[in-house]
């Protein structure tokens, strides 16, 4: 196991280098300037502009710019062009909110994915199976921004509960429990919206895997010796069916990060998705690079955890 993890970490580092080079090239070779205001201001002479470019090493050859950005990123000295604050600090203060949101989404995906998948597999080929299948496809086909708006209108207008931001403003809570509950609610709503596509994907994986397991001989044996249906399903079949679900978790992460850009924008949720969106608009190269690098690290760590979990739940898988 240790050897596997070390080897995977090495490959991960290599992948990170590739990812950083590719994203660097995409962002720097496409036209645009981080100082669009400079062209509109007649008082800014070409010399001043050149000084600005020099300050951020934009006048140097590409490989030097790349090493400047990467060494700055790794040593933590890289600063944002917009407000000169260290990028790691800017991302650091937004990251916990996004992690809370995405982990909550993963939890919802897993719980509902398993429940719906097992339910569909149990009634495979009959109408409950068909209904869950269609529901899964509806979940994938929902445009994220649209359903976010409907949820916001429904909750704010219909029921009158606040859902925007990370906590309610202007409310005086008497104890810590209420504060925590309020915060939890503000994560739960956007996380549920973000999770819809994942629930669909995970329930499909679970259903397929479960149907396959239910055809095995030991299931027939368990049924033949008179075990009740729920024991067969949840004790025997379930354990042997969750592997594809874990692989699915690895694939969900990039989709969740993409989705959180939109969901965070609509729910006014202060996470890194929103920060990245603004950074792209402002052509804040250091911040975009840092965002890409950090999300890539998170996703690769997620994939690594998924692989290790995979081996833990199934002794037949050998990590070599």
């Amino acid at each position, binding site marked *: 196991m240790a050897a596997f993890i070390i080897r995977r970490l090495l490959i991960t580092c290599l992948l990170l280098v590739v990812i950083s080079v590719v994203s660097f090239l995409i962002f720097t070779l496409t036209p645009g300037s981080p100082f669009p205001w400079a062209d509109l201001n007649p008082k800014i002479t070409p010399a001043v502009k050149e000084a600005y470019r020099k300050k951020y090493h934009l006048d140097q050859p590409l490989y030097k710019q790349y090493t400047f950005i990467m060494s700055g990123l790794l040593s933590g000295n890289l600063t944002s062009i917009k407000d000169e604050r260290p990028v790691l600090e800017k991302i650091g203060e937004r990251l916990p909110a996004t992690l809370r949101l995405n982990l909550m989404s993963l939890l919802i995906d897993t719980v509902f994915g398993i429940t719906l998948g097992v339910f569909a597999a149990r009634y495979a080929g009959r109408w409950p199976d068909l209904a869950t299948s269609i529901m899964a496809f509806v979940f994938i086909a929902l445009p994220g921004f649209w359903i976010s708006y*409907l949820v916001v209108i429904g909750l704010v207008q219909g029921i009158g509960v606040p859902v925007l931001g990370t906590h309610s403003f202007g409310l005086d809570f008497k104890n810590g429990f209420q504060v925590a509950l309020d915060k939890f609610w503000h994560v739960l709503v956007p996380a549920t919206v973000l999770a819809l596509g994942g629930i669909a994907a995970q329930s499909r994986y679970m259903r397929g895997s479960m149907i396959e397991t239910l055809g095995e001989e030991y299931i027939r044996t368990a049924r033949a010796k008179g075990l009740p249906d729920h024991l067969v399903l949840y004790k025997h079949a379930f354990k042997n069916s969750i592997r594809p679900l874990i692989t699915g978790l690895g694939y969900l992460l990039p989709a969740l990060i993409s989705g959180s850009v939109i969901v965070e924008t609509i729910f006014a949720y202060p996470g890194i998705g929103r920060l990245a969106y603004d950074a792209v608009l402002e052509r804040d190269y250091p911040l975009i690079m840092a965002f890409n690098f950090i999300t890539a690290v998170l996703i690769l760590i997620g994939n690594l955890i998924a692989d290790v979990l995979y081996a833990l739940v199934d002794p037949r898988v050998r990590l070599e």
Partner: protein
Amino acid sequence: MNDKSPRARAIERFSADKIGVASACFLVVLAAIAILFAICSIAHIPFPTDPNKTNLQIKLVPPNFTHWLGTDNLGRDVFTRMLHGSYISLTVGFVAVFVSLAIGVVVGAISGYLGGWLDNLVMRIVDALMCFPTLPLVLTIVAYLGPSIWNVVIVIGITGWMGTARLVRAEFLTLREMEYVRAAKALGQHHRHIIFGHILPNAAAPIVVTAVLGVPDAILTEAGLSFLGFGVQPPQATWGNIITDGKAYILDAWWLILFPGLAILVTALAFYLAGEALRKATQTRTERK
């Protein structure tokens, strides 16, 4: 049954699938509407109703008998605008899938056929690219290239080929061991002919299914980009930007948000259901179990 070709059997199975047939019929009608409006727009034939005709006296009118789906903040008829937006969504979907399919099939085919270190390298690069969250990447490129329909389509296409490449590679890994491939090699046929003439036609079914399932993904991505202001630009109506324009009136004019969103949802759903039916129909007996 056994004397029928695999294709005939697949068609037979597909036509027995009521949901699949219904979805396919819906898509055909939608495509007909879209093509009609696309031709009118390209050939500058005046439309029976103008999607950009403003009339401030009737702004934000709820759905009624003259304006079936209401009007927007400039008094434009939402139903007319949605009809005009239909071909944008479908064009984006199909062209983006075509781009990603072209890249994915070539990369996957070569990688799977040749194998060895090249295959290893290509698959690691695919792994790396799959770690990119698509939306920020697409957003960045479109922000720099400028938001036009073709830029959006190309960017969605070049960021979405990795799944196809993996699938095609997996198919090629099994198919290249087949006897007919060995026979073709023994006859001294060129690699290019073996890849595209012999193996690819046998891998066609899963590729077609991926293509059908890829169209709604592209449509949803375009809608998301439109929402963020990076999609096809106004005054050209698209389902995505009708919602974007309408979000300012979200509390007064629910119809501006609801109907275009439903159109995206139903279209994407029809593609997914038709694709799923197609997948089931083209699988062999053992795979279908």
